[in-house]
């Protein structure tokens, strides 16, 4: 975070030096530009999704009034941010990592998908293993041991120590 701050300071003080010359380029601050454009898109989705809701009924707000009101303002301001992205210089888009997000988010979804049918023990272990694969320096055997230990810890902590009702094993494994 500190590094982030100092980097930004550098950007603020000497953007012309850091950034390549922007002679004819339209998008001078791609982070702001694409950020703004995305927000406009989100606002548009919200406007569309709330278009079937009744609006003002006389003096009273309908369920659709506030969403449409805020979505409209969001669209306007998102547009403003995008326009600013064309008028001011800024840092280039940061690269997105692929491996980390895929495995981390994949493991979260895996947990969501397996916790009900497979129970806490199997689900935790699967989730942990997928998550562990998110770093390139993962070692399979070491991770398997760590994940097994963590699974055991979770299986004791949540249902027994914290008393949260949770299914431990899949139904077909119950005796």
């Amino acid at each position, binding site marked *: 975070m500190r590094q982030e701050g100092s980097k930004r300071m550098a950007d603020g003080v000497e953007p012309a030096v850091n950034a390549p010359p922007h002679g004819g380029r339209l998008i001078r601050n791609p982070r702001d530009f694409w950020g703004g454009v995305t927000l406009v898109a989100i606002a548009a989705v919200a406007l569309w999704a709330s278009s079937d809701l009744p609006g003002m009924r006389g003096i009273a707000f309908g369920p659709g009034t506030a969403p449409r009101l805020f979505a409209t303002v969001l669209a306007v301001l998102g547009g403003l941010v995008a326009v600013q992205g064309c008028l001011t210089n800024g840092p280039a888009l940061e690269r997105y990592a692929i491996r980390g997000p895929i495995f981390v988010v994949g493991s979260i979804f895996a947990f969501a998908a397996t916790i009900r049918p497979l129970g806490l023990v199997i689900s935790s272990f699967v989730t942990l293993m997928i998550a*562990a694969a998110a770093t390139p320096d993962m070692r399979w055997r070491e991770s398997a041991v760590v994940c097994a230990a963590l699974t055991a810890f979770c299986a004791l902590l949540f249902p027994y120590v914290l008393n949260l009702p949770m299914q431990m094993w899949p139904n077909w494994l119950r005796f």
Partner: protein
Amino acid sequence: MTELIANLAHGFLVSFSSINLLLCLVGALVGTLIGVLPGIGPIATIAMLLPITFGLPPVGALIMLAGIYYGAQYGGSTTAILVNIPGESSSVVTTLDGFQMARQGRAGPALAIAAIGSFFAGCVSTVLVAALGVPLTAVALKFGPAEYFSLMVLGLIFAVVLAKGSVPKAVTMVLLGLLLSMVGSDLETGAARMSFDVPELTDGIGFVNVAMGVFGFAEILRNLESPEHRDIVQQKVTGLMPTRADLIEAAPAIGRGTVLGSILGILPGGGAVIASFAAYTFEKRIAKDPSRFGRGAIEGVASPESANNAAAQTSFIPLLTLGIPPNAVMALMVGAMTIHGIVPGPQVMTKQPDLFWGMVTSMWTGNLMLLIINLPLVGVWVRLLRVPYRHLFPAILIFCCIGVYSINNAPFDVAVTGIFALFGYWLVKHDFEPAPMLLGLILGPMLEENLRRAMLIARGDPTVFIDYTNHKISLGLLVVAATLLVLAVLPTIRKRREEVFIE
């Protein structure tokens, strides 16, 4: 004055009961344990540990959560001093001088002064919370929907002004949060709004899910990007006690940090992060020799640490008296209170004095416990910090997943969290600050409800909010909000503001 003492005495009776003392201790301990882990701030810590308080009585649960909060905060400072990685954003500035002190073999005094400063700030702000509680509640009871609406607008504007980065971007984040809060059933008519015919979405998007995704998981994604580099102080931490000279140097800084933190904590949108930044900047500015800062100046640890603890506590004031969470951590507290069937607001103090005063006084006991437990446990934290991140993050991840799942036993909630993890990652890549979004999300329903009610009472006349004769308070609040916003976009102030965040 006598009333204040009587109230505090009543509170201490509650918080000194053995069960509550134990819960406070466990909360502070577990909070520190999680808070020490790099990259996990109080928001993620509280969200992760929220489920463990479900089975407790409301008073105990909230006392424990408050303990978790202070623990997480203090854990973050420990990490900052020992590893040069802020455990959370409010201890960013602590890394500057704290880690330098540790390098010079003075990790012990740095940790001790952080604890002592926090404790002092905790004592002062506990009294402040107790003293301001009664009068502010009286004011809150006079508030109508128009005043509440304006107050929330002011809070959101504060969040915008105090967020780092550009003002328009922060405003878009608030609006996005407000929009997200409207997903689900309409409060008055029950109509499903923006739920795309997904039955799970008609309940709305849970605050904890968003917080966990945007603050907890997105942070993991960020950390995985940069190769691991931890610079743990190698030598054994010895000689915990600061010298007399240290204490004399640090004492005024602790006092200044406490005052600054207490004020900034009460302001909506403020809280611990901004308090520690401001305190550090202030110390540096008034110092006779500013060049000492960044090289292990003890004031650079004492002041921000006192400030963030003071702010952490005084930020309970708007929550407990007005029912309005001033920042994301307090928003989580609202979530916890609702789970236990308590509606935060002015009625809490009169209807549930045990809860109110018990919680206020538990702030003091919590801080005392931190002072006692943390210093002897430094060795444990150091060992914990040696665990490589590749083993740490799967553990964090699974605790978060199980935590989120156990709130409603809903796998859908976990999936939502995953989506918000990606969204949070995207936000960071585009320099959007997620904190104002969270505040918008939590204030959204209250804001809309009061807006609708105020408009209805005024027979559809939108000038009700700036009506001088009947709604002076509302007008005043909106004027302050507008002034703040204008000031924030003015070029000169903007520069100063950027300076503060860069420090």
